[in-house]
């Protein structure tokens, strides 16, 4: 059957968005501006920037975290079986990603392999999490930065143009002009905003069917799940999923229209939030036919995941091997409030394959917090600097996640391994097939590797990954029902907690790569270090002065906001930071470094006026 409607994404059209603003640089006019806290993200984040108004660009930006909770400290000595219940509480929007990742690490450490049906149930739960979280984040939080109410304030001429620009896919999503789309995104008023809020609930119901509770699941265990598998369970999920599939058929073209319009209306917008292509994805959705959770076979079962793990440097897939990925992890102290552990205990000297493990690897990290005053010339954050060691070049890379979806789609596309009927990775793109639903015919979406790792492509990838997760879930439902029909209803495995063991779990949290590393001694947790995506994205400058991804992406961002200095809202900076989907229950602030010729002034929304220093 041929799909009736086809799209390709348009973000990389050659005729739009000529790369660089070619004005002669003027003498910098630097103004310090801060936004603290950044709202519409999870956790508290502040931004402190130095803005060059003469050249309309961000000159500098640092990153620092404001909240410490101490999981790695208080988990020591606890029962290893409790790890997933505890670590779920790290995050209030993707806690289940942590719980799942912790179970993966437990399975490896305990030497067990859950029955296939349990894996399909977890995959269905995690797919629902992606569908929910991206939906709520994209259309109720990020979307507000693109809504009519916002654009009217920041870029009136863009809104005027949007009023006159017909939406290319109006026939599919029902909004005649781009301005109509923007109005539909107005918070708590726009029809699309309210619909997305409802969809975020429907998908959470799907999640709860599989994992019990959102966002800290109740039914996950080492070795399987407690969920009762039945025809009813998977039907309840499928019928809701099909509603979401139909929703996606409208949402993908809607966002394509919106983001393409920004490239068109604001030539040069591709430079906003652009950084070098340094993307990491740790893989998602285990394939129970291949995955046995043994470290020795990890490269094989990693490559069999339904979102391929890998590292992309400058457009090249450097590796898709989870052992390589694991060995390359390095945690640098950066400018953070901790004591170093270079001379502390080494928990793991070699991995089960005999490879040496670095002292700066999470297995060997010792966390000892040392609270102190925030000092931007010295230590200014609770976040360390996770980096990845590229064996080919010996370089330590500040990978980012592209907000999650950009890295997932990029790696999966290049690896060209996923081919499950509903999804096909081609080597240069990812094709997603959504079958006929009640009101709309079947559709194929094709996400093609974009030219940039930038703000708009991070946001666009999020929408496509929503469709990807829905398509993957259609496949998982079929696999799960096949198990039920065959009478293979077992969902759990017997296990014993070993006295001594190590384990690692690799997964994709909604906003990017996630790893859990555990060391067990005397049957208790001797060391536990989770590395969530925001630690990578929000990391500060490391010992070599290499900035973290937020800092990097915000710095040198050109500014397209029309407001003058007095009414400046920093919308292009907000869009950039939010494109990474910051999830900061670990709290992050951004701060500018010391500068010459600095005129310090708060944006008018600030309560306090600081004195000027020149």
């Amino acid at each position, binding site marked *: 059957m041929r799909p009736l409607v086809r799209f390709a994404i348009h973000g990389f059209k050659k005729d739009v968005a000529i790369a660089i603003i070619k004005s002669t640089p003027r003498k910098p006019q630097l103004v310090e501006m801060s936004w*603290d806290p950044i709202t519409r993200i*999870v956790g508290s984040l502040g931004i402190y920037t130095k803005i060059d108004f003469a050249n309309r660009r961000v000159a500098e930006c640092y990153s620092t975290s404001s909240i410490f909770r101490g999981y790695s400290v208080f988990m020591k000595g606890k029962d290893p079986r409790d790890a997933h219940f505890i670590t779920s509480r790290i*995050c209030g929007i993707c806690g289940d990603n942590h719980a799942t990742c912790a179970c993966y690490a437990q399975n490896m450490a305990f030497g067990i392999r859950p029955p296939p049906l349990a894996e399909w149930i977890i995959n269905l739960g995690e797919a629902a999490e992606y569908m929910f979280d991206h939906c709520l984040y994209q259309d109720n939080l990020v979307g507000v930065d693109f809504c009519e109410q916002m654009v009217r304030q920041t870029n009136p001429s863009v809104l005027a143009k949007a009023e006159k620009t017909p939406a290319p896919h109006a026939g599919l999503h029902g909004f005649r002009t781009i301005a109509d789309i923007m109005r539909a995104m107005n918070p*708590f008023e726009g029809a699309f905003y309210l619909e997305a809020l409802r969809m975020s609930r429907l998908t959470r119901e799907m999640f709860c069917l599989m994992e019990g509770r959102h966002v800290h699941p109740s039914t996950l265990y080492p070795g*399987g799940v*407690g969920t009762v598998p039945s025809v009813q369970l998977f039907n309840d999920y499928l019928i809701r999923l099909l509603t979401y599939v139909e929703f996606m058929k409208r949402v993908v073209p809607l966002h394509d229209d919106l983001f393409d319009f920004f490239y068109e209306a604001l030539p040069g917008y591709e430079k906003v939030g652009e950084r070098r292509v340094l993307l990491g994805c740790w893989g998602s959705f285990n394939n129970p036919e291949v995955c046995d959770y043994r470290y020795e076979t990890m490269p094989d079962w990693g490559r069999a995941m339904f979102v391929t793990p890998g590292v992309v440097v400058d457009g090249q897939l450097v590796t898709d091997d989870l052992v390589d990925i694991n060995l390359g992890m390095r945690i640098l102290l950066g400018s953070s409030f901790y004591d170093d552990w270079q001379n502390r205990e080494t928990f793991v000297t070699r991995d089960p394959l005999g490879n040496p493990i670095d002292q700066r690897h999470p297995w060997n990290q010792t966390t000892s917090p040392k609270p*102190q005053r925030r000092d931007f010339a010295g230590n200014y954050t609770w976040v360390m600097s996770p980096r990845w060691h590229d064996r080919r070049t010996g370089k330590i890379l500040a990978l980012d996640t592209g907000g999650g979806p950009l890295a997932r789609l990029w790696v999966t596309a290049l690896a060209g391994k996923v081919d499950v009927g509903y999804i096909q990775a081609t080597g240069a793109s990812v094709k997603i097939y959504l079958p006929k639903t009640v009101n709309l015919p079947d559709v194929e979406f094709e996400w093609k590797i974009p030219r940039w790792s930038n703000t708009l492509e991070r946001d666009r990838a999020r929408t496509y990954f929503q469709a990807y997760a829905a398509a993957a879930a259609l496949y998982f439902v079929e696999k799960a029902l096949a198990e039920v029909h065959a009478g293979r209803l077992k969902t*759990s495995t017997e296990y014993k907690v070993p006295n001594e063991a190590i384990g690692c779990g690799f997964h994709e949290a909604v906003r990017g790569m996630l790893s859990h590393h555990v060391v067990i001694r005397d049957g208790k947790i001797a060391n536990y270090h989770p590395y969530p995506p925001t630690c990578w994205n929000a990391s500060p400058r490391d010992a070599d002065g290499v900035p973290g991804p937020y800092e990097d992406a915000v710095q040198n961002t050109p500014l397209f906001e029309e407001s003058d200095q007095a009414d400046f809202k920093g919308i292009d900076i907000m869009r950039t930071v939010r494109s990474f989907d910051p999830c900061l229950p670990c709290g992050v602030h951004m701060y500018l470094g010391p500068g010459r010729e600095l005129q310090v002034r708060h944006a008018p929304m600030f309560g306090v006026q600081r004195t000027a220093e020149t």
Partner: protein
Amino acid sequence: MEGLSFDPSSAGCGKGAVATMEGREFYGQKTQHTPSAPAIDILWITAGLGCDGDSISMTAATQPSIEDLLRGAIPGLPRVTLHHPVLSFSVGEEFLKPFHVASRGELKPFLLVVEGSIPNERNKQEGYWAGLGTDAVTGQPIKTCEWIDRLVPHAWGVVACGTCATYGGIHAMQGNPTGCMGLADYLGWQWTSAAGLPLVCVPGCPVQPDNFMEVILYLLNQAAGRAPMIPLDDQLRPRWLFSSTVHEGCDRGGYYEQADFAGRLDAGSSKCIVKLGCWGPVVQCNVGKRGWMNGIGGCPNIGGVCIGCTMPGFPDKFMPFLDEPPGAQLSTTAVVMYGKTVRALRNFTRASLNREPEWRANNSPAPSRSEIR
């Protein structure tokens, strides 16, 4: 001052119908009362040691939903303006402005919602465990404790949202370096607001979506003069939500009664999972009965052991989570004799009831062709 709020009259509600009734009293109007507080602000702080999971949970609620409250869907309530970091249109100081105004006692009335546990900032030489925004004078973060100290004296009411904020929760686990605690410990259990309200604790990790929104709805009704003082138990929990145990409303209670318990290998069966570590028999929580959202999901009712996440003793008193609770070893032993006997008798009766009465049988001869025509 920005916040999320909507004027119902601009949305085309109400006014028109009343206007046509001018001059005489329309019988329906007798049912409608102006709230004694016409408007109220909700200030929400997520900067405790938490995960924002209670905020995310709140967006899942439908009884009522957040848009129901902000759009004035329920008659007779004050107009609500929400200042919430996860949903706010505004950013930075513009977002914090109402928090500063309220700190000075110039925003009345307001309801303060606190999420996350409260660190002990006195257990170290310098620095901070948790902060929100930056102090214009010192350039250092404004500590979460400072915000609470500034806001609490002026609040009409204070709600602790989720187990971290109520009793300390997961981050107050033994061995934590931050010395964190719940709001009840921080403010004192006898604390009352200037308006006479005690601290309201809505525990849950995270809070069950509708439980929380239902409490907010109750308090709005109370602020409107339409409900008496919110009834709380000795742990400051709303009585109507937290009086019963999980077990008392559990789908699987019948299996317990029949001493039919799941082991690790049949964790995915429908049997009682108390031997897998479920604390449901003694935990005060309505999730087993109410489900997680729209009646879907939950804990032991759908195969997840209850780890006691609504309780003041959580998590330490429930760990290791996957060991059978000591009390359950005793009670399940006691129920075995009765349970097995009853199960056998019921199986016998059930087998009988699964057979139709013997007179329902097709005893007449098959009809001939001509008869069918």
